[in-house]
């Protein structure tokens, strides 16, 4: 039995049919076609599939898709505005904050949730924000540095 659901994805209205009990990760990837969202554990432990639901970071692999009807969902695919990259994306590029890149979309969304809520986070705030996102390549420090580059609220990289 499939259930029709509607929500906003990166500012656009989308509608999809979800299998009964389907999780948001599968619906975004298979039904909607947003492949920027990655699955890492499908059990809510690695943070790879992190998306923002109404501004809050959520693990899409353990989020019931039907429960997302009417919400506003943000993914890494919606970070850039046309040709312009989001400052977080630029900071990740400049800080070598990705190697294999698989955790990066989820990591970016966890960081965006933090900066949207707190434009001037401390290192402690950053650690707290990404502590649920596992990265096996970088050792985290380049990611922390990239996020802290934006910690000033201006949205521009500090010199």
């Amino acid at each position, binding site marked *: 039995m499939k259930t029709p659901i509607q929500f906003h994805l990166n500012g656009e209205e989308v509608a999809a049919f979800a299998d009964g009990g389907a999780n948001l990760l599968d619906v975004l990837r298979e039904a909607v*076609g947003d*492949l*920027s*969202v*990655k*699955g*890492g*554990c*499908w*059990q809510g*432990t*690695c943070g*790879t599939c992190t998306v923002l639901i109404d501004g809050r970071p959520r693990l899409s692999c353990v989020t019931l898709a039907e429960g997302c009807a009417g919400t506003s969902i943000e*993914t*890494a*695919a919606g*970070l*850039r505005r046309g040709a312009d*990259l989001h400052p*977080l*994306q630029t900071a*990740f*590029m*400049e800080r*070598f904050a*990705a*190697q*294999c*890149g*698989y*955790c*990066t*979309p989820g990591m*970016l969304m966890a960081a965006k949730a933090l900066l949207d809520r707190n434009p001037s986070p401390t290192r402690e705030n950053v650690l707290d924000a990404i502590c649920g996102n*596992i*990265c*096996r*390549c970088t050792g985290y420090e380049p990611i922390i540095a990239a996020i802290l580059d934006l910690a000033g609220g201006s949205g521009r990289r500090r010199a």
Partner: protein
Amino acid sequence: MLEMRKDIFADERDDNLTEVGRPTQRQDILGHVTGTSAYYDDHRFANLLHLQVLRSPHPHARIRSLDDSAAARAPGVKRIIRAADVPVNLNTLLSLIQFGKDDEPSLATDVVRYRGEPILGVVATSERAAREALATVRVSYDPLPAMFDVEEALRPGAVSVNPVYPKNTFEYYGKYDHQKLRFGDVEAAFAEADTVLEERYQMSPIEHAPTETNGSIAVPDTNGRFVVYTSTQALFFSLDTAAKINAMPSNQLHFIGGTVGGGFGGKVDTLTEPLAILAARLTGSPVRYRLSRHEEMQFGSPRGAERIYIKDGVMRDGRVVARKVTAYFDSGAYTRLSSYAVVKCVAHIPGPYTIPNVHADVFCVFTNRTPATAMRGFGVTALDFALECQMDKDAVAIGMDPLEFRMLNAYRDGDMKAHRREAKNCALIECAQVAAEKANWPLREEFRRMSSRVGRAATRAGAPVPAAAPARTRAGSPQRVPYDRAAAAAPAPPPAPPGAAPEPPATRHAGSTHGALRFSSVFGTRRR
């Protein structure tokens, strides 16, 4: 800030390394930060089917009976894949380079040899349907005694893990049950050593835990070929392995990969492609075979555990005069790449130190554990852990500074290694000097002045040999110069003025253009 010490490493590279020490960007970073990098699972196909496998719950058991009739009738199931369906069911990864015997089935037939070994495949319209069908398969097992210890596995009468290697050791060149290294006479040196220290080191298996699990999608192409999107780290190696197992010419396979969601060595074993291709052949549809996180952590091959015994003979003056290593590499139930790890391990003994008497025996041992695989310097990393712990313990035993102890024993240009090759381009002493400086670790003057370029023959001329430490003239050890703290009191040559160019290295070999070639031959082509 990184710096390239051309004064030390000039021979290693011909290029100027203009990028070292400067920030740079990955060529694939834009795709990563925009979520557009295409991993194997980011390709979409109509009518995609899903393969999942039944795995053994026992580490060692005989399969008495197997009933998959309910699974064949389960909703969404398109095909059951049994061992008999696999064209070449027995394989070993390094058979591609004629190294080792085929010892591992794609799907177990009569016996399972590790917990998690694949037995049966189900292809269905969804992963969930495949798993639900697998839950209906009834298997009756006769559990067999399981072997989990590398040393017990070598005892006479031990349970045999793998019938291809009934003695539980990999066979090198068809006849040797381990790899040996012999240099000098360790037993005689132990008898004369001031201190003999023997220690045991045990590593644990380590899971790579990539954020993307192993997986692949095999897609029938319009021309009879199969396009395979895969997470593999070893694209052509996996292609050839898949071709062998499926008994098809390799030009019928088109592998697409390279964007890997973390590997670290855990994606070189061709775990999924052969069965995904077989499933695509048998169903005519695209088939994805993706490991769950549970499968990746429990059954994806880990770094193998190693047990290493090191026995060192050390003189009070700091010289390591003998080193005996006995090591057991836990390969798990099948060979995969562990036979090669053992070769690397032996090649690395006795570490970067000039030791005149070396004796090593290293075994590749089969146990009923998950088969091991490559991971970040496998074969070498664990040995280095053991060797460097041992160096610390040696230093403590004779009351010497651990860093100076290493510098004293470090390879120098012109030394003869235990493998009977001349040491060249040595820089351990210089690295230790830089590390000591950065860490504010006090080094005595003679160690601050020490150089890898000054061969031991030159030192012999400069520093009188104390009578208390007679020069060893044992076979294979002519280059070792005795050292004693008393030598520090001997008149030393004046130190080079700061900033001066290093002394013309007398022992440095000509033809530095070969440096880059040698560098790439060692590090460029075997990185895993």
